[in-house]
């Protein structure tokens, strides 16, 4: 009977061809939407686990070298290290030294108008006074602070950040102004430090700095147990809020300031979430459309062949055998449709996905970033500062006036935008399985009612018409 069913397709070729075409469009669309859904979903979870999932802890009332209060301590950080959902804790310690004091270093930058202005804020009102700019030293607990996009080691090698040996990485500017290269030594806090490497951090400001293992800096600067910032990486952006509240309850919200860019990144990926939903609805919609086509065609065919069904029953066919004939007929149509649909899916999945993503995210991303004003935050004096553990950069004049400029949130903006652009579907062998799966779902959904109709046809049908 299965063969008869397949042969039946030839009974009305024009109709069969149009059914196959409609089905192939519906299956192709289902496939495109399924692949888009998967790709977008993956992208979202990627973004969620890589951007905006960091929490920065600073001492309450203090930021960089501004404000007051007490530093946070290793002991405090150890208390929160093992909270659930935390992937990594990166600690940094900041210190500044005036060139020539307990060291043999020259500052790579002149004070300029900004430097003088900062000094004026501190009470130095002599306009002719030209201060030398202090050198910023950052103690790091993790390589991630001095590695990543836009950062490159120009010579030498990285040190082991968890060691307490007297080694350091120096920015390219300070290296050239002091004629230092890998293997040379310099004095800091009257301690001899060996240059392990020279690094290009990507910004002038960061290239003016020195980077040491955090334990080394704690030891030589007399800041044992102190930490300036702890940056906590959470496994997903969705868990950021719960981790924040747990940290607050452990350490007490009066002792620490916590910042995160979670809300901003969440609103940035919101358009992606809505495309994900659109593709899911389209997937379901196209499967339903395909099923309805098969349903209507089968009902039509059953009605048309009512007498034939009666004859088959009269000459001894079981309901099952007749059902098999009809189901194999529609299954064949659907499978041919699926093959064409798979081809359509493979050809169009990526273009459709990128059109979907680009047209619906461009405007909304821009407005969402403008709304939160990320890029202006970091440079806005007195405004809320979004600090970064990865590339926290401090400018310091005199006794601690500083401007903490963050680049991380700006970087995450471009990262999200560019990751939207390079979103693409994965086309592999499984696409065949998904196509066949779509065909099966369509056939099964579309066959239920016609099968009931078949079983209701009475064999006496054949004598009634005569």
């Amino acid at each position: 009977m299965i063969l008869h069913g397949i042969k039946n397709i030839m009974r009305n070729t024009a109709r069969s061809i149009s059914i196959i075409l409609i089905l192939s469009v519906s299956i192709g669309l289902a496939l495109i939407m399924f692949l888009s859904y998967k790709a977008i979903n993956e992208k979202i979870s990627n973004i969620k686990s890589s951007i905006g999932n960091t929490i920065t802890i600073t001492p309450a009332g203090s930021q960089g070298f501004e404000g007051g209060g007490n530093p946070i301590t290793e002991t405090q950080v150890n208390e929160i290290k093992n909270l659930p959902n935390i992937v990594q804790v990166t600690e940094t310690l900041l210190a500044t030294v005036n060139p020539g004091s307990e060291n043999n270093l020259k500052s790579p930058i002149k004070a300029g108008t900004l430097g003088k202005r900062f000094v004026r804020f501190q009470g130095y009102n002599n306009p002719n006074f030209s201060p030398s700019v202090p050198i910023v030293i950052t103690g790091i607990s993790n390589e991630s602070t001095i590695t990543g996009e836009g950062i490159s080691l120009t010579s030498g090698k990285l040190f082991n950040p968890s060691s307490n040996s007297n080694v350091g990485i120096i920015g390219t500017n300070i290296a050239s102004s002091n004629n230092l290269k890998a293997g040379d030594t310099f004095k800091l806090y009257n301690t001899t430090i060996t240059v392990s490497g020279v690094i290009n951090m990507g910004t002038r400001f960061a290239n003016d700095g020195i980077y040491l293992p955090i334990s080394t800096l704690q030891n030589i600067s007399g800041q044992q147990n102190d930490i300036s910032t702890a940056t906590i990486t959470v496994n997903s952006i969705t868990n950021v809020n719960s981790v924040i509240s747990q940290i607050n309850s452990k350490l007490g919200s009066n002792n620490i300031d916590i910042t995160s860019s979670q809300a901003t990144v969440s609103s940035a990926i919101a358009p992606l979430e809505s495309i994900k939903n659109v593709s899911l609805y389209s997937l379901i919609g196209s499967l339903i459309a395909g099923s309805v086509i098969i349903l209507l065609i089968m009902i039509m065919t059953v009605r048309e062949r009512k007498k034939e069904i009666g004859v088959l029953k009269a000459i001894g066919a079981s309901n099952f055998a007749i059902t098999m004939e009809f189901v194999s007929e529609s299954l064949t149509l659907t499978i041919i449709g699926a093959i064409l649909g798979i081809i359509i899916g493979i050809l169009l999945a990526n273009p459709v996905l990128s059109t979907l993503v680009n047209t619906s995210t461009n405007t909304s991303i821009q407005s969402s970033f403008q709304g939160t004003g990320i890029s202006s935050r970091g440079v806005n004096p007195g405004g809320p500062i979004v600090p970064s553990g990865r590339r926290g950069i401090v400018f310091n004049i005199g006794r601690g006036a500083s401007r903490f400029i963050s680049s991380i949130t700006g970087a995450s903006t471009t990262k999200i935008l560019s990751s939207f652009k390079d979103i693409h579907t994965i086309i592999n062998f499984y696409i065949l399985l998904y196509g066949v799966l779509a065909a099966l779902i369509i056939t099964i959904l579309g066959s239920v009612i016609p099968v009931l109709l078949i079983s209701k046809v009475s064999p006496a049908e054949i004598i009634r018409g005569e």
Partner: protein
Amino acid sequence: MIKIDNITKKFKSGDSTVKALDNVSFSINKGDFVSIIGKSGSGKTTLLALMGALEKPTEGSIVVDGEDITKMSDSKLIKYRRDKIGFIFQQYNLIPNLTALENVMLPMEFAGVKIKDRINRAKDLLNKVGIDSTKQKRKPSRLSGGEQQRVSIARALGNRPSLILADEPTGNLDSTTGKSIITLLNKLSKSNNTTIIIVTHDINMTKYTDITFKITDGKLSLAKSKKDKSVLS
């Protein structure tokens, strides 16, 4: 072989109930060639449908080879129709997209006969009813009415039924072709000892059959019996 006992069949027609068959009883033996004649609407086709288990009677019993088909389950009825009955229709009712040969093979396919045996038997039967090998490969639309009816006779014989039910088998044929069809049926009845019941309004058919019943307004009466084997109970 077939014993029909007090069969009544009622149909609902709008608000009123129509009695298509009214207390019909008769019995026939294996190998009998029987005709049932009656005008259209007399209930003759209904009687045929009941014997072929296409419908169930309102009252009464139909015993074929010792089994009461009115009490059979649906799945048993499928087997009954497949193995015991061969149908021949006025409209031939061949499956249009299958060849003559494939049409004849169909009931054997339902019975689970192996494909090789199906082909051989179908060819054999078609040769017997006078459809040559060229015409066996044709679809029904490319066969004449008489040829189609021959194919349908061959199809009815596929599973070696004990009873062949023919509904106006010559109704759509000219008199010469009709005559040859009825002769063929007669020959089959004799050579295979198969019981054949023909339902017709054509009085001429009765001269070929052993027994003739007449049906008027749902009531059955014996019109003629060559063998005098049959009994109206």
